[in-house]
């Protein structure tokens, strides 16, 4: 049979382009949702360890609690449950602020035991106890507590704030349960005297309101490039880097661009040609991308390659060279 003829005939089949793209988007969306539910444990675990890594190597100085930590190793023993060596390291390096805030509701005590902020991420650990609590800990029961953030000033009908984040399911620890949460701060800079507005609304099936205002020490990010405008464009799109925050092991890039977010891709190389962006993307949207990656202290500049996919091809915009001071 003649292939050309066959193909020509098949290509006469009219393609409902719009509907086709719409079912593709829907397929991806369903997949994304299913994946999110299915992989919650793994995801949280890996992010938690990433968060721990950030603390370990970021070198940020939190409020000094050396002596307290040395004698009351609450945090150490908490992290030991998940990552023994890291918990010990944390204890040694004093990179987490120990806290002891307890709120009681419906017979359940919730105590926030520690907090950190590293310029992009918050980490909170907490302990829940109460005679009423009887939580089955298994791989199926991952969402064994609920929390949300609220806008400044908590009252009835308070506005919930949505940040990116991950949580570690409750684990049994003696007669209590312990858990951990990691949250990404969406803005560039923390306001002065910021405290993290966190509410637990469900602990192991018990509904309630455990309201916390967790004080955060303002820790300046290690490095920030500002001032100079970095813009690159091609015949269709432009990309302007407005801000970049670089910690030891993470990087937030803020930008303005008309490249649609679903085709935008950022590649970041350091001056030695190391690809910092591959495997390290944590999140990105229309204005910001976060990478869980550090840079070496000897790094002089970064090169940022914004790209878009067009007409079946990758189109690279001219790279932006960002001096590191």
């Amino acid at each position: 049979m003649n292939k050309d003829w066959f193909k020509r005939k098949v290509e006469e089949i009219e393609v409902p382009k719009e509907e086709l793209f719409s079912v593709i988007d829907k397929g991806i969306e369903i997949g994304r949702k299913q994946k999110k539910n299915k992989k919650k444990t793994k995801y949280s675990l890996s992010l938690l360890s990433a968060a721990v890594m950030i603390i370990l190597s970021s070198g940020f100085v939190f409020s000094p609690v050396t002596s307290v930590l040395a004698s009351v190793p609450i945090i150490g023993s908490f992290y030991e449950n998940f990552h023994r060596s890291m918990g010990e390291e944390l204890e040694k390096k004093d990179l987490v602020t120990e806290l002891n805030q307890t709120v009681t509701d419906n017979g359940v005590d919730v105590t926030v035991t520690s907090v950190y902020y590293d310029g992009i991420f918050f980490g909170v650990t907490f302990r829940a106890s109460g005679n009423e609590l009887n939580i089955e800990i298994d791989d199926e029961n991952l969402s064994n507590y609920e929390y949300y953030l609220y806008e400044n000033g908590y009252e009835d009908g308070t506005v919930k704030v949505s940040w990116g984040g991950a949580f570690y399911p409750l684990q049994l620890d003696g007669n209590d349960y312990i858990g951990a949460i990691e949250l990404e701060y969406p803005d560039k800079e923390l306001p002065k005297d910021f405290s993290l507005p966190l509410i637990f609304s469900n602990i192991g099936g018990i509904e309630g309101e455990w309201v916390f205002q967790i004080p955060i020490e303002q820790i300046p990010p290690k490095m920030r490039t500002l001032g100079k405008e970095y813009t690159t464009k091609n015949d269709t799109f432009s990309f302007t880097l407005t801000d970049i925050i670089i910690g030891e092991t993470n990087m937030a890039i803020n930008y303005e661009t008309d490249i649609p977010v679903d085709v935008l891709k950022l590649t970041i190389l350091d001056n030695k040609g190391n690809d910092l962006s591959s495997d390290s993307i944590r999140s990105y949207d229309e204005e910001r991308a976060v990478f869980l990656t550090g840079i070496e202290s000897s790094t002089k500049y970064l090169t940022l390659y914004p790209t878009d996919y067009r007409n079946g091809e990758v189109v690279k915009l001219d790279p932006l060279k960002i001096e590191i001071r």
Partner: protein
Amino acid sequence: MEITMVLNAIKGDEAAFEFLIKQESNKMYRTAFLYVRNKDDALDIVQETVLKAYHSIHHLKKPEYFSTWLMKILIRTAFRTLEQQKKWKVLDNETLENLLEQKIPEVTQNIDLVDALSNLDVKYQTAIILFYYHDLPIHKISVMMDKPEGTVKTYLRRAKMELKKILEGESHYEQRLV
């Protein structure tokens, strides 16, 4: 298709995944259509294929086989749809009535390729679609259909003969089909 983009998709880059899928989308739709012969079912097959691909792309070992891998998922999904339709047809009164009335297409009328294909056994359809539309070599079709190469060749030969019978009645199409 860029290998690096497939690699990115395997690593979890959704934009790359979406881009690759959309690049293949016409082919996906038309292939699905060849099996089910209607828009809604074809779209359903595409959506289900995208979902399955989304969940399993990280298992894709050879990025250069992205397209083949995707079509394999699509064809299996189409098979399943056809199986389900068979079951439905038993319950579908209208179809039953049509069958009872023995609606035979007028011989003088153009028989569309899509209709002609639908008269073939599904394994012959698949062999024909992969060989003629997807331009795949026999050894790849053999992998996709989980059949030895010899069997694929037999399928192709018989499929061509049957198609010839159906289509050559319609001389206006192609003088030399086989």
